[in-house]
C-alpha cells in the first residue's frame, strides 16, 4: 500500500541541534523499518508562530496521515492543532512540545534532567558553595522548567547559594558573555549550572583567569571534548537527543499501523547523562550516568556542534550520518 504521508513542521532552522534533528528524521525515514513506508515531508518556517500556524493550515488542507511538530510555542498552536486532530490527523509534537490534549508530546524528561544535574552539582560542592544558573531563553517553557528544577533541588542544600542568573540563549556566545559578566560581579563562584553547552562557561572561566569549577550542560560534542581536554574540568552533561524526531516518526507509524492510540500523551525519551567520573542519583536511581570517554562518547574528529548520543538504541544511526558528513 502507498506510504504514510507524514509532515514534519519545524519552526526554526537556525541552530545545529535543529539541523541534526532534521537530518536524523530524513535518515530514519529512509532506513528499515520505515524505508518505503513513510513519505516524510519537512516544512520549515522562519521562527514566527504566525508562519508556523499558516504552514500548519496548509499542511492540514493537504490531509496527510500524520503531522510531527517541533513547535514555536507550547500554547499558541493549540487552536490550529485542534483543527488537525478534528480532521483525523495524528499529531505528535516533540522537542518543543504543545499542550493541546489531542496531540502527543515526545520529549526528554525535563524534570529528571535538572534534578540529576543539580544533585550532581551539590555532590561536587559537598553541599556548600555559591553557584550561578542559566535561565536559558527568556519566555521559553523548557528554560523555565530547567531553572525551576535546578533551584528546587538546590533549595534542599541550605549552604548552597544561587548568587546569579544569566540568559544563555542555548548559544555559545551568550553563555560565555553571561558567565563572564557574572564572574566579574562575584569574586567567588563554585559551580555553574548551564542550560547550554557548558563549554562556553569553561571558556569564560579561563578567560577570566579563574579556576575551573564544576559545570553542568548538555551533551554536545564540543562540551564533551572540552570537559575531557580541560585540565581539572568536572562536568555532567544531560542529553536532549536530536533523534527525538526519529522517536516521533516511530510513534506516528506505530499509531497509524495499529490504529489504536496510547493513553499517555507524554512519551519521555531518556537519553543517558555523560559525566567526568561516575555518579548515581538518589532522586532518580534509574538514570544512567555514563563516564565521558574519548572516542566512545566524545569524538575529536567530528564536528563540535554534534549532539550526543547520535542514535536511539532501537536503530543504528552512525555519527557520520547524523553529522551529514557521509
Amino acid at each position, binding site marked *: 500500500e502507498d506510504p504514510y504521508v507524514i509532515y514534519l513542521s519545524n519552526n526554526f532552522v537556525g*541552530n545545529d541541534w535543529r539541523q541534526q534533528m532534521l537530518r536524523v528524521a530524513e535518515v530514519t525515514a529512509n532506513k528499515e523499518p520505515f524505508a518505503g513506508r513513510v513519505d516524510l515531508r519537512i516544512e520549515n518556517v522562519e521562527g514566527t508562530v504566525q508562519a508556523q500556524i499558516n504552514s500548519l493550515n496548509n499542511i492540514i488542507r493537504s490531509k496527510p496521515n500524520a503531522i510531527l511538530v517541533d513547535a514555536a510555542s507550547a500554547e499558541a498552536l493549540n487552536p490550529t492543532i485542534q483543527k488537525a486532530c478534528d480532521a483525523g490527523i495524528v499529531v505528535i509534537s516533540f522537542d518543543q512540545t504543545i499542550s493541546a490534549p489531542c496531540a502527543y508530546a515526545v520529549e526528554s524528561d525535563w524534570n529528571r534532567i535538572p534534578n540529576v544535574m543539580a544533585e550532581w552539582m551539590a555532590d561536587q560542592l559537598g553541599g556548600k558553595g555559591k553557584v550561578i544558573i542559566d535561565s536559558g531563553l527568556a519566555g521559553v517553557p523548557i528554560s523555565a522548567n530547567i531553572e525551576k528544577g535546578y533551584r528546587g533541588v538546590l533549595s534542599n542544600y541550605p549552604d548552597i547559594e544561587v548568587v546569579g*542568573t*544569566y540568559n544563555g540563549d542555548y548559544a*555559545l556566545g551568550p553563555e560565555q558573555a553571561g558567565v563572564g559578566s557574572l564572574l566579574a*560581579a562575584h569574586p567567588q563562584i563554585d559551580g555553574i549550572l548551564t542550560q547550554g553547552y557548558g563549554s562556553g562557561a569553561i571558556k569564560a572561566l579561563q578567560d577570566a583567569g579563574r579556576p575551573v569549577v564544576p559545570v553542568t550542560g548538555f551533551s554536545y560534542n564540543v562540551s564533551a571534548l572540552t570537559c575531557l581536554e580541560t585540565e581539572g574540568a568536572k562536568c555532567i552533561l544531560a542529553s536532549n537527543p536530536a533523534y527525538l524526531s526519529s522517536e516521533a516518526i516511530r510513534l506516528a507509524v506505530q499509531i497509524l499501523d495499529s490504529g489504536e492510540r496510547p493513553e499517555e500523551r507524554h512519551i519521555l525519551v531518556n537519553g543517558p547523562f555523560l559525566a567526568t567520573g561516575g555518579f548515581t542519583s538518589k532522586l532518580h536511581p534509574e538514570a544512567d550516568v555514563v563516564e565521558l570517554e574519548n572516542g566512545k562518547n566524545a569524538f575529536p574528529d567530528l564536528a563540535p556542534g554534534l549532539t550526543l548520543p547520535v542514535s536511539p538504541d532501537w536503530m543504528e544511526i552512525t555519527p557520520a550520518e547524523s553529522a551529514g558528513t557521509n
Partner: protein
Amino acid sequence: MRSLLEGRSQILLAYASAIILLIATSFVSPGFLSESNLRLTVILAAFIGIVSIGQTFVVIGAGIDLSIPWVLNCAAVTMAMLAGGQDGNLAWVVPLVLFGGMAVGIFNGIGVAIAGVPPIIMTLATNVILQGVILVFTGGRPTPPTPEFITYLAVGRIGPVPVLGLIWLVLAVVATFVLSRTVFGRQLYAVGDNAEVARYSGVPTVRTTIATYVISGFTAALAGILLTGYSGQAYLGMGDAYLFTSVAAVAIGGASILGGTGTYVGTVAGALILTILNGLLPALNLSSGALQVVYGLVILVTVAASGETVQRLGQVLFRKRSRPQGGE
C-alpha cells in the same frame, strides 16, 4: 557652527553616559573594573563595534543593512569549514570569505541604488536568502573547530591589551578618517542628506551608495570570522544578536536613521554603552522580564539625557527654533 557643535557635544555626552554607566556598574558588580573583565568588555564591544562600522556607513547614506546577521554567520561558517581548523589555510580562506561578504554588499547595493528597492526590503530578503544558502551549502552540517590563529585574534592579548581591542582601534581610526577626511566620506553625507542635490553636484550617488553596502558586507564578514575565535566554533544563529544591536549602536551614537548625519566615534560610544549594559544586567540578579525593563529604561535615559541637553545647549546658544528630529 551649530551642526558642528551639536554633533560634537552629542558624542561627548554619549561617552559621558557610557562612563557613568561604567561607574554605576562597578558598584553593582565589584569585579567589573578588574583587568580581565575590562578586557572581556572591550572584546564584546569590539564585535558590536566592528559590525556597526558598516551599519554606520549605510545609515549615513540613508539606508539600513538588515542582512548583517547572516552575512556574519555565513562568513563564520564558511571560514570554519574551508579552514578545517588549520591555520595554514587562513592565508587564502580569510581573504576569500571577506571578499564573499563584499560580494553580498555589492548585491545589496545594486538592488538599492540601481534597481531602487527599499533598503529595508532588499537587505531583509538577502538575510533570509543567505540563511537558506548557508544551510544548502553546509547541508546544515555542524562545522569543524576554529583555527588557533583566529582564536588568538579574538581572545589573545599583547601584555594586558586584547588583540581584538587593537584591531578595533585601527578599524575605528580608519573608519573615522574615511568619513571625515576623504572625498568618499564627504560625498556620502551629501547622498544621505539629499540624493538629488548630491546628484546635481556631480556626486556618484550610485557608486557611493553601493560602496556603503560593500563596506558593511566586509565588516560583517570580518566580525563573523573573529566571533568564531571568541566562541571557539561557528554555530548557526550566531549573528542574530547583531540585527538590532548594530542599528541601535549607530542611533545611540547620534546618527539619524533617516541619513545624512552620524559619526563612527559616536557609534563606538553606542557599542560601549550597549556592552556595559549587557554586563550590568546579569549582575542585577533580576528576572528576565525585569531585565528587559531595565534595559529599555537605561537606553531611554541615556539618550534622553544627551538629546535633551544638546537641545538646551542649542537653544541657549543659538535660539534655534524647534525643529523635528525625525521629521524631515
